[in-house]
């Protein structure tokens, strides 16, 4: 690769100019305020963590972790999510805290990407973790909060798809007992969203027609509440049954929250993160090509840090919403411009302080001595990315 030009930045990261920052900050503020109203308190963790602790626990695949070496040669990672760091804090600083614990966060996270554009190396996540409660009530709470958060962010048309890791595991145990390798390759196909491959793998296993039907049946398990019944017809394995019962209870609570119309069942969905153990969900916005929210239950993760407690949570990809939420242009207060000659400086600055104290935005500027007043020397506005004009121009001379 040739030496980068002075103004170049690495692929996968981006600059945000003030108008975008205003929008991004507002989304972030609204979402965090919403989470706050549900009793989730904000936490901050370091950008950098040890590879051997948080890096390994985070389910981001090894080649996608952004790795660095510190001075001693220890491998460090830039955090790839906040779930693993928060699990670490829960097991150390907050280890004696009574459960359940509700935490929220807003942070930039990192992924090492291949040269490809369009996939970000740094992006923003706003999310929550609900630690120490394994009830369907808790899973429903985070889904309902995800829905509220999307609304607070200004996303109007969205859907949540909800699945459960246990159903597929139960079905596979039932149909292919003791055949771990075949189970893995079927899961791999589903994880790659390759349904053609999934059907081909089933065909290659030479199963009885009923078993084939069971495995292929899962591909149709998407839709409303009725899916639960169909799922139980396909598999009556204990784990599968328990998973569906859990989802039905979550659904019941979501109905009480009055948000179930946004939610659909999808039992083909495997969370992209390997630490998920139970219910998983994804949020989709109509205007955006990839999911804006993802979450689920991870009951084994905290154990890796020495505190075996269940947990559930989700994260919203905040900057992706920025690209999609068009309708909400922000009307900002324009600043007041105070211009003064050297002899009026004290008066001008006092006036500015006065207006600022009242909550106005004020910019001050000196009129050079050689200027004859008028508009000469006034800042240029047209064609600028930053200047939006002034509410009022006050000239003191």
């Amino acid at each position, binding site marked *: 690769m040739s030496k980068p030009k002075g103004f170049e930045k690495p692929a996968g990261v981006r600059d945000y100019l003030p108008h975008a920052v205003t929008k991004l900050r507002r989304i972030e503020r609204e979402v965090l305020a919403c989470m706050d109203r549900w009793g989730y308190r904000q936490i901050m963790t370091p950008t950098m963590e040890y590879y051997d602790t948080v890096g390994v626990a985070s389910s981001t695949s090894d080649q996608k972790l952004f790795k660095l070496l510190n001075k001693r040669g220890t491998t460090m990672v830039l955090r790839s999510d906040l779930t693993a760091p928060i699990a670490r804090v829960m097991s150390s600083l907050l280890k004696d805290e009574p459960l359940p614990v509700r935490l929220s966060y807003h942070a930039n996270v990192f992924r090492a990407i291949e040269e490809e554009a*369009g996939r970000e190396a740094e992006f923003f996540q706003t999310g929550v973790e609900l630690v120490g409660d394994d009830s369907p009530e808790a899973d429903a709470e985070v889904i309902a909060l995800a829905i509220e958060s999307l609304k607070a962010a200004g996303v109007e*048309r969205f*859907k949540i*798809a909800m699945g459960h890791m246990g159903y597929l595991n139960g079905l596979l145990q039932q149909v292919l007992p003791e055949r771990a390798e075949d189970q893995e390759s079927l899961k791999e196909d589903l994880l*790659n*969203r*390759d*349904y*053609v*491959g999934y*059907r081909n793998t089933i065909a290659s296993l030479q199963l009885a027609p009923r078993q084939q039907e069971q495995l292929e049946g899962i591909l149709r398990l*998407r*839709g409303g509440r009725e899916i639960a019944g169909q799922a139980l017809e396909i598999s009556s394995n204990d784990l599968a049954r328990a998973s569906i019962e859990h989802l039905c209870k979550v659904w019941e609570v979501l109905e009480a929250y009055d948000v179930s119309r946004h939610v*659909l069942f*999808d039992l083909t969905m495997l969370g992209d993160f390997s630490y998920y153990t139970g219910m998983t969900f*994804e949020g*989709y*916005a*109509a205007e*955006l*090509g*990839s*999911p804006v929210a993802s979450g689920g239950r991870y009951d084994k993760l905290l154990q890796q840090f020495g505190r075996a407690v269940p947990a559930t949570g989700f994260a919203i990809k905040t900057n992706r919403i920025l690209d999609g939420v068009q309708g909400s242009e922000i009307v900002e207060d324009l600043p007041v411009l105070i211009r003064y000659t050297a002899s009026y400086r004290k008066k001008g600055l006092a006036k500015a302080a006065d207006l600022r104290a009242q909550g106005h935005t004020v910019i001050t500027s000196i009129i050079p001595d050689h200027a004859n007043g008028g508009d000469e020397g006034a800042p240029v506005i047209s064609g600028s990315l930053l200047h939006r004009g002034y509410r009022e121009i006050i000239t003191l001379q």
Partner: protein
Amino acid sequence: MAETLKVAMPKGRIYKKASALFRSAGLPIPLDVDETRKLVISLPEAGMEFILAKPVDVPTYVEYGVADIGIVGKDVLMEENKDVYELLDLGIARCRMSVIGLPDWKPGITQRVATKYPNVASQYFREQGQQVEVVKLNGSIELAPLIGLADRIVDMVETGQTLKENGLVEMTSIFEITSRLIANRVSYRMKNDEIQALCDRLHKAIMSEGAHVSR
């Protein structure tokens, strides 16, 4: 109300076969769309809009969500490795990806392989434990072994006619290729009903056609 499905269609070889399959699935696709030079074709009766794209670009359109679904060969999917749902094997445009060489090929000291599919080729040879240098070409791949640019090629073989005419032989077949129906991750959820309905109709049409072909 049903929402319009934006369908990325591959221009060229597969296009007519795909629109014929849609017709046999009972979708009202007029015959003249096969000949038009328009890039975006609105088909309100079928509840669809065709976007005519270069085949290698179809997965990109679908991954970004500017098209909800798309039709594309497995060769392109293997090469491009995009994050999309692969819903259905359409069974059309059947061919295979193969390693091809001159009849008297013997492994040399440096082995060079020319191909339009560098990712597919490097992965295949890596898995075989062979160290080869992959040369990316954009067309007329068969030329490479004839003029000594590469000693083997990896390319799609349909009838084998071009190979025969150029004195080349198919050495190994890597995988079978057919056209696939793919879907964007968000559209697959937001337009679940429309996509599932289309899948079911296409599946039925493919099954009856399959029965027809195999007599």
